[in-house]
């Protein structure tokens, strides 16, 4: 094998010298600990070593078979939303120091700790909570961790979720809450989509650890009864956990102000590209209370004083709770998190600031309202299904036509339009329905094009 460009010591002479220093004759002696019967003696059936230009050409050729959002007009959201990513976000998260660091402490890696602390601080401001944990994989896993925390914190074993939750997110929550809590649905008002508070009262019991609501909901409407739901839950000794899309908090009340005890959400809108759903960032916030913090195994990073005044260090709080120390007694399981994305989120929110966030949320809500209005004018289409304010996403129902959502999406694709997510199977009671997404990236012309193309298809 020729000397490999990534392996400084792959030179035969260097290896020989090093083996001599070790005191062995051949490298096989170093592997002698693996029983011979377990040694793989064939050659792996993999491609041969490929040079950088060949690798680049090969991978780019395969990737070129993807059609990206520049080539199509997309109305897909549902947990991965198309927002503008400021160039500065990519610039900072491409910095090799952030990209390639890992587990150093604040003495070697002060910068990544400070950036993380700043991200936590900004999430704290968005949701009005004082404690924010280490970032995790995505909204769904953060929700799983949040509800597991609620169950452990209260010693209760039931979690109430809205029936309108994404079934995939519910599956994640179920997998995260094994052994500590089971989930149960609360019905929704068929007219507004809002949580049915009478049903909530009926289902709340002394076994309810937490009520979980989302804002905006999976189906796009805003849950406007957060304060009432919080009161009802708290009366029964249950907690309120709220899942949020963070940009909406430019115009929506922060959950901490309407009674939430735990907040979770998805950070992908904060400067991360859709990346086929591969760049998500879950965040988790709660009351700054040992009772809550002891009920999670997440790492917790705090600012701290140092020996020299005027500077800060950072450290891990209550380290004995974490998986690394508590092992099978840990309350949750997150090791490597999503810090590069959290740092990006801090950059994004710093660029937006309070006014930028509000303006952006307003633009999104206006575009969404306009899209609902235009689509509702298409013959045979109902948009949205629920009489409530919506943010970023809304339901589009095709029961007034003879075709399925899939039919329409195939037809739209011929016009280079990606229609919304088909939820006809997930929510059969809603008929042939899709979730459409509009953000600040959509122009009036884009929305008009969707409406006119759908109208055309109705003919």
């Amino acid at each position: 094998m020729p000397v490999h460009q990534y392996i400084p010591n792959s030179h035969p002479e260097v290896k020989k010298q090093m083996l001599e220093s070790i005191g062995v004759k051949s490298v096989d002696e170093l592997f002698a600990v693996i029983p011979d019967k377990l040694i793989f003696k064939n050659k792996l059936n993999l491609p041969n070593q490929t040079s950088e230009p060949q690798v680049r050409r090969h991978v780019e050729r395969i990737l070129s078979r993807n059609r990206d959002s520049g080539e199509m007009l997309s109305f897909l959201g549902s947990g991965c939303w198309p927002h503008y990513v400021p160039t500065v976000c990519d610039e900072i998260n491409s910095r090799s120091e952030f990209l390639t660091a890992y587990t150093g402490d604040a003495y070697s890696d002060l910068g990544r700790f400070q950036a993380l602390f700043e991200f936590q601080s900004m999430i704290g401001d968005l949701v009005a909570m004082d404690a924010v944990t280490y970032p995790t994989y995505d909204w769904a896993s953060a929700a799983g961790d949040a509800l597991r925390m609620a169950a452990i914190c209260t010693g209760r074993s039931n979690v109430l979720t809205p029936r309108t939750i994404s079934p995939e997110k519910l599956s994640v929550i179920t997998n995260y809450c094994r052994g500590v809590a089971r989930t149960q649905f609360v019905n929704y008002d068929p007219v507004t989509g809002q949580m049915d508070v009478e049903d909530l009262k009926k289902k709340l019991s002394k076994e309810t650890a937490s009520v979980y609501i989302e804002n905006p909901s999976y189906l796009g409407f805003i849950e406007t009864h957060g304060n009432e739901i919080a009161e009802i839950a708290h009366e029964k000794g249950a907690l309120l956990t709220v899942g949020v899309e963070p940009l909406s908090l430019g115009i929506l009340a922060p959950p901490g102000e309407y009674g939430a005890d735990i907040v979770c959400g998805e950070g992908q809108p904060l400067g991360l590209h859709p990346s086929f759903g591969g760049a998500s960032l879950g965040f988790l916030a709660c009351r700054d209370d040992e009772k809550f913090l002891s009920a999670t195994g997440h790492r917790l990073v705090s600012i701290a004083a140092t020996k020299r005044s005027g500077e800060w260090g950072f450290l891990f709080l209550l380290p004995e709770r974490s998986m690394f120390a508590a092992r099978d007694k840990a309350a949750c399981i997150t090791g490597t998190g999503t810090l590069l994305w959290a740092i990006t989120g801090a950059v994004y929110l710093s660029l937006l600031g309070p006014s930028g966030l509000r303006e952006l949320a307003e633009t999104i809500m206006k575009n969404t309202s306009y899209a609902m209005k235009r689509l509702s004018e298409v013959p045979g289409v109902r948009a949205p299904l629920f009489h409530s304010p919506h943010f970023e996403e809304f339901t589009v129902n095709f029961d007034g036509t003879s075709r399925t959502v899939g039919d329409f999406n195939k037809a739209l694709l011929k016009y280079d339009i990606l229609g919304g997510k088909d939820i006809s199977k997930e929510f059969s009671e809603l008929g042939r329905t899709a979730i459409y997404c509009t953000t600040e990236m959509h122009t009036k012309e884009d929305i008009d094009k969707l409406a006119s193309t759908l109208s055309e298809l109705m003919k």
Partner: protein
Amino acid sequence: MRASTKQETTYRAVNWNEPIIYQLSKAGRRGSAIVAADPEIEKAVGNVVLTIPDRARRKISPALPELSEPEVVRHFLRLSQETYGVDSGISVGVGTCTMKYNPKVNDALARSRKLTEIHPLQDEDTVQGILEIIYTLGKWLCEISGMDEASMHPRSGAHAVLTNAQIIRKYHECNGELDQRDEMITIVLSHPCNGAGPAVAGFKVITLYPNEDGIPDVEALKTSVSKHTAGLMMTDPYDTGVFDRNLDEYIQIIHDTGGLVAIDQANANPLLGRFRIGDAGADLCHFNLHKSFSTPHGSSGPGSSPICVKSELSRFLPVPVVTYDGAKYYFDYDRPDTIGKTASFYGVIPNVVRAYAWILSMGAEGLKEASEVAVINSNYLIQKLLKIRGVTLPWKESYPRRLQEARFSVQKMKEETGIGVDALNRRIVDLGIQRCFTAHEPPIVPEPLTPEPTESNSKEDIDHFVDAIQQISDEAYSDPAIVEDAPHNCSITKIDMSTAIDPNKWAMTWRAYVKKRGLLQFSS
């Protein structure tokens, strides 16, 4: 051997004394111009924000910092400069993390618009390229592990262990034995997630400890298994760099009792092309692409940790599974016995692309070469470090050679000088070298030190690292105060560790800090 003059370091970490970003805020500044809604849209919909009932509307904007774009760039650039990445210098000490070089071409490919600007719910026909990469990488990982089917879903090693625990659970559930099989066995020398994962999946966990030879007794496992055993979840090779030679015997014992075996391959770097966990009989495993397969660690994520399973278990994999029918790649959701989801969508796809490109750059022979050099580097380091006063290697008699890493102890140094691993780690960063990994709890090895040189470090890098440990040892035995008071050359001085357990002092957010301001005094 006294430290070389090279070690009389002039290293100084970057120290910008950069304020917390909130302190840089000036009311009214802004870092981005937001696109306003089209005037015609405004006209058509009016002020829709007011349709949100008062009780649900935000009254006061969040207290985010207000900065211009150049200020934001400068701030975060400075923070990046105060961070020590793999590219910054020597990370030989960071064991279990496999801090290998992250090739730049792979980053360039991961930043392609053809990846970043595609949506996970697009029509399959419009994403054939990425589906091909996901599918092919899965096949390659199965070839490397001797397994049958892969899933890219898990987003970290711990997440993969949780996913595998859920699969084991589902397997027993489908056999009608879940109520009976509620115990998972693990070995304490494994990464702690092998205890935490099954616990979160609802199992009782039985932990085995090593005997005086550094691995558990086969008899201990035999007496732990019963009709309650769901399976065995462990790491091999261990974080001590020891490969457990009884592995196939453990697997047989677990299989004989009706359980499944999941082996954490986070430490697979010394095994590539030389050992396949599937051939040894394991039913499930996972790899960390951010370790053995060179994807960057991202300051602590996103990682990416595909699982590989034997064909009997493929019906339990998380959905969707990416499949190929000979003409087209597609999502297979038709797995009635699936465990469902453990996260949204399909995994950390940018890292899947990076790992795919890395395997191409290495080829079958290159993978084996990487493993071989990693093991040579590790054993070269062992013999050098053992010459240093105060450094010992537990279980040296039974395991003089190790694979990817070795767990040393500086207990002797601690006893003789008062300098243990905590002070050593504060001092080594003074010398321009990343701190060493110690060990996970519980401390089986006292004052542990676990370096892992990987194949990416040159002989000179390793020598440089050894010189640094030598210097610290010399200092410990001659002038311990310099080590005890370290760091001296870093961005900050010694941190007030009492904060970690003091609710009056700790603050995870600026808003909490402001409330507790004045309480952050140094005390140690």
